[in-house]
């Protein structure tokens, strides 16, 4: 089987400082990869390099495109990369405000990607928007409300609906549950797990919350100071950490 995403030797430097270096992994269709590490460990830099928001200084990000098979997205032309960014890829930001248009209604937010790929039938777009609101557990009657009138958890779910409406194959998530209270987090995780399984999505999730990766991720990468210090199956890494830093990380989780 061809990996959906092959990452080879990604390096990003900020001047002489290391953002991340020597990162490589394969991601297969339907697989969810978690990236954990403390603040400043380079996990968000890595995610932004993979998603094409930052240009890495070295390395390859090879994506298995529908039309042409595996292609290095870093050498793609910008229109192609941006097209990928709104069809086969999705990016869920930590803060819903970064991923939503706050002055546009929920329906318009969900419809934007559809219209960007050429949908020109208002009725169809609206039906799909209402359908997706339902899937992320937002009442269909809120379709004309602006995200500013939504709670934090609803905004995050709206952002997910907006991203998944074009049926992407790979989703990047940057701390999707950050800043939400625990009960809302639990429901969001439940929803995400359902959607990932149901749509057969591949996902790369960056988080510092080990519980999130325990629930969602099949595989785990632990980052420290821009390097990957340990990787493997999620349960294996969390239950039997080998690297000193991973041991510290796992033992630092508060037990309730």
């Amino acid at each position, binding site marked *: 089987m061809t990996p959906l995403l092959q990452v080879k030797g990604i390096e990003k430097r900020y001047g002489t400082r290391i953002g991340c270096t020597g990162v490589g992994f394969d991601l297969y269709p339907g697989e969810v990869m978690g990236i954990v590490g403390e603040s400043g460990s380079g996990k968000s830099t890595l995610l932004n390099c993979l998603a094409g928001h930052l240009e890495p200084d070295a390395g390859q990000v090879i994506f298995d495109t529908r039309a042409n098979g595996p292609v290095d997205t870093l050498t793609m032309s910008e229109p192609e990369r941006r097209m990928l960014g709104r069809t086969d890829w999705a990016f869920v930001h930590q803060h819903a405000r970064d991923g939503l248009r706050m002055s546009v209604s929920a329906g318009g937010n969900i419809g934007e990607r559809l219209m960007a*790929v050429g949908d020109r039938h208002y009725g169809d777009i609206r039906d799909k928007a209402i359908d997706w609101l339902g899937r992320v557990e937002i009442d269909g009657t809120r379709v004309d409300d602006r995200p500013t009138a939504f709670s934090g958890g609803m905004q995050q779910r709206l952002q997910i609906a907006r991203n998944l409406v074009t049926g992407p194959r790979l989703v990047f998530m940057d701390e999707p549950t950050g800043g939400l209270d625990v009960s809302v987090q639990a429901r969001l995780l439940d929803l995400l797990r359902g959607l990932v399984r149901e749509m057969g999505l591949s996902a790369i999730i960056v988080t510092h919350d080990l519980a999130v990766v325990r629930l969602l991720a099949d595989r785990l990468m632990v980052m420290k100071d821009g390097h990957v210090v340990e990787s493997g199956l999620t349960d294996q890494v969390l239950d039997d950490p080998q690297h000193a830093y991973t041991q510290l990380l796992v033992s630092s989780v508060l037990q309730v």
Partner: protein
Amino acid sequence: MSAYNFAYLDEQTKRMIRRAILKGLAVPGYQVPFASREMPMPYGWGTGGVQVSAATLTPDDTFKVIDQGADDTTNAVSIRKFFEKTAGVATTEETEMATVIQTRHRIPEAKLREDQILVYQVPIPEPLRFLEPRETETRKMHSLEEYGLMHVKLYEDISQHGAISTAYAYPVKVSGRYVMDPSPIPKFDNPKLEMEAIQLFGAGREQRIYAVPPHTRVVSLDFEDYPFEATKANHPCDLCGAEDSYLDEVIMDDAGNRMFVCSDTDYCRSRRKAGHQGRMATEGAA
């Protein structure tokens, strides 16, 4: 007259503007940056249009200025006088006679000809501006033809008002490529954008010039189930009886009486001269 260079601007500046105009004509709908000069009038009063007119006028031209269709409003009168004084060109109020027409917010009702140039005053040339505030981003969207966002605006219109409520500055796609703001003309005028005359757009404050060459395809954006409609007040003109012209609504008194008149004053006048009469026309009013 001798105190000014012809048409106020110096020759180097006019060359610079003409280069921008030519580039605009070569790439229909593309916003060409240009080094907008300070003009002796405030931004928002047509500084862009005036500079384009100045670079376009020749001593043989006949110049007409309209503001919301009218020849006799402040903006139109002062710009007409400005060029009478600085260029000494002939001016007219008749659309037929003019070779260069500067306009604010209207296209004349009379069909324009191949030998005429229509110059628009544009306040905000970027059709995506209110959706995407970053200029770097809107430029990228134009260059990559990413226009989904424009439809998001129309979607919002329909979801809030049940119909596309954008009534002026209605976005168009020019020659199948660039999405363009046709300046704040009423959408009634949009179908007229496909014409025989050259159309030049000048935005002074925003330092942009763009153009639509003659016989260029200009399509108003819409949805399959909510097609574009050119709308006007459902009423004939009360002075000349025209049913096909864009109308201004005039409140007559405190009792709520009102009349509708052609916003294109020259069109209305010429129709009354030809004997057409509306509901409120008085004898000899023309």
